[in-house]
């Protein structure tokens, strides 16, 4: 087990290093001078030079890369060019919207998908199964931003149950904050829940066809007992993989959903910073997201090993 974890940790470190280089290089080649973007069309040459000096844009790429990575290792993400506040503070402010949003969406999608998948699998071929398959087909096909607009139209503009967007802030209380994240979370969760339901159903059906289930049935267990005691645990492995992958989708999808609902989260921060050429913010936030995805995958890998002891020994 220990060797397995060390191996995974090493690949984690390599992935992070490669990611940091790629992110930095990608933003190096993006055209557009941050200083010119900030000062606009009437800026004079000496003013631009003064600002570049102030922002430290005059130094070479290697020095800037070194500063950036070195700073991140000790928790210093640099200072935003445009906002002139430390990037770590900006991230700290906004992660309290993006993270709860992603977690809320993830719980929603898991809470819907697993029971729905089990239900459909246990009644294979029935009306329930067909209904679940049909609805999830629709859920996969509908783009989440469009679904979001539809929900705003119904629940915010017509019924007035929710506001059309924005975030009240955690200081307004737990429930009001959750209330303002509900529509975005549903919009994010819908396609994920659909995918997850289908994965859950087919994984369970596959497992139910295995020899050990037949053995269990032969021992005298009912179909339901075999499903709950033996099939479910084995069917969870592909489901876990998908949940891990979905976490990255939720973070990426949040960029669009946060814009539709004008939530001041990380996704909107990235979007704004790219338009403003606030490169240091883009670099740091993207790096953080990459980091989150890689770490989540690492956790998923470790969870596999816990759920399935064969994996520990095989590698």
């Amino acid at each position, binding site marked *: 087990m220990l060797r397995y974890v060390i191996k995974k940790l090493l690949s984690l470190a390599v992935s992070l290093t490669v990611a940091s280089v790629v992110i930095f290089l990608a933003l190096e080649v993006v*055209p*557009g*001078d*941050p200083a*010119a*973007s*900030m*000062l*606009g*069309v*009437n*800026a*004079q040459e*000496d*003013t631009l030079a*003064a*600002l570049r000096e*102030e922002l430290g844009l005059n130094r070479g790429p290697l020095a800037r890369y070194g500063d950036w990575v070195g700073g991140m290792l000790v928790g210093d993400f640099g200072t935003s060019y*445009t*906002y*002139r*506040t430390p990037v770590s503070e*900006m991230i700290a*402010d*906004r992660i309290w919207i993006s993270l709860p949003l992603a977690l809320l969406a993830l719980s929603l999608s898991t809470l819907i998908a697993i029971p729905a998948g089990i239900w459909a699998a246990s009644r294979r071929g029935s009306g329930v199964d067909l209904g679940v398959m049909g609805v999830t087909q629709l859920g996969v096909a509908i783009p989440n931003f469009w679904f979001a*607009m539809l929900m*705003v*139209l119904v629940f*915010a*503009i017509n019924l*007035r149950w929710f*506001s*059309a*967007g*924005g*975030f009240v*802030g955690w200081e307004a209380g737990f429930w009001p904050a959750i209330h303002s994240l509900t529509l975005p979370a549903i919009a994010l969760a819908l396609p994920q829940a659909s995918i997850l339901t289908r994965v859950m159903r087919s994984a369970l059906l596959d497992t139910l066809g295995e020899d050990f289930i037949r053995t269990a049935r032969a021992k005298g267990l009912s179909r339901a007992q075999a499903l709950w005691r033996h099939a479910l645990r084995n069917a969870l492995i592909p489901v876990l993989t998908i949940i891990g992958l979905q976490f990255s989708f939720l973070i990426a999808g949040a960029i669009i959903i946060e*814009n*539709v*609902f*004008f*939530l*001041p*989260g990380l996704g*909107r*921060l990235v979007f*704004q910073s790219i*338009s*403003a*050429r*606030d490169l240091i913010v883009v670099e740091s936030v993207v790096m953080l997201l990459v980091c989150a995805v890689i770490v989540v995958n690492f956790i998923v890998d470790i969870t596999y090993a816990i759920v399935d002891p064969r994996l520990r020994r095989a590698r």
Partner: protein
Amino acid sequence: MKQKMIKTGLASALALVAGMGAAQAQSDLVIGMQLEPPHLDPTSAAAGAIDQVTYSNIFEGLTRFGPDGSVNAGLAESWDISDDGLVYTFHLHDGVSFHDGSALDAGDVKFSLDRARGEDSTNAQKGLFAGIEAVEVVEPLTVKITLAQPDGNFLFNLAWGDAVIVAAESIEDIKTNPVGTGAFEFSDWVQGDRIEITRNEDYWGTPAKLESATFKFISDPTAAFAAMMAEDIDAFSGFPAPENLPQFDADPRFKVLVGSTEGETILSTNNAQPPFDNVKVREAMAHAIDRQAIIDGAMFGYGTPIGTHFAPHHPDYVDLTDQSAYDPDLARSLLSEAGYGDGFSTTLKLPPPSYARRGGEIIAAQLREVGIETEITNLEWPQWLEQVFRGKDFGLTVISHTEPLDIGIYANPDYYFQYDNPEFQELMDDLQVESDPQARSEMLKKAQRIIAGDYVNGFLFQLPALGVAKTGVQGLWKNSPTQAIDLTGVSWAE
């Protein structure tokens, strides 16, 4: 009859009570805007969003723009101009204090102006202060500004948001905690979401009617529409989806405010690049363009056609649209005369605003009609600034020049469209030192005629200021003489 009268009386009494209730309840305003300011120092960035939040609300200058674009007294109560036009002596209002309690004096004025024109200044409009030779404190409330040469625009320049008066004591944190002299003081900023300001109870002038106001940042046009419809916000300044305005207009809960801005929207043409160095080609293009079709197609009918680079609401505006009337046949014959009977192809680089992206497509189609092929490239702002504005690497672009009274850009041969006409440059030099209003007016009219006659750029339309507000909101500026959302006179109907 009697019964009817009683009913009417009752109804109006009810309305009165309802109205009074609303007036007491509503002393705050939530106003939407598309872009969030990067920070809150109007004296060190170009972002219009900074001025929208701070201009007049938080910060004030010696002079200020009125809703009609006129220049009025601001922190300066009055001023004397020496006969040679070189020395301006400003007398400041007595009893003005900054939000942190410190008093405004001539030293603050000197500090602000010296900072704006100083060596390491990062003022986006540093050029406004280039003519200042010295700023001297005469008395605590009297400041003397000496210019290198007379400048007929000086009082106008001082009204810009980039020329507001700041205090040395609070300059350190100005970007996140702006301390000004305005009728509102800054109270909170949730980055990415909103900025809140509250009424300055010790304001030196007429106090604001609103107790507090919130600027809410909604960049997505659909989200802006939804937020307005759901009544999450009370007004939206610079509404990004003109196609939705008729829907608001038809809804009794809302009113639509259509005004004018200082933005001349032009088909900017690289005058130094062949074949655009040939005036015949530029003239042909001017006749190939159907302005009304562009206004209808790109702006859903909002916008005033212009025939030169000048705001139609300005008293000195000359309507020269007929000079470049839509006439594709004339355009084709002019192109043949210029030796481009078979047409030519060029680049059309479009920045992000919808007037440019939508307008650009329509212009491309209109130019194709007369044989000019355009290769459209969509650019983000930083790319546009780098390639087009600074790199001058373009044939055509669509852009709105939003600075007020900016016809002077045509006197700079290095400006990105590279128009070089010594006669025009001389005229602008003369205008600079002329202070007689009548003579200035004549010169401005002549300037408009020169650039229209040279067909420097395709003059399209004046960018409209489009706003939506709940019916009860009063006193919002309809026009945008500068990028400001001045809330000092805004209130709810009683």
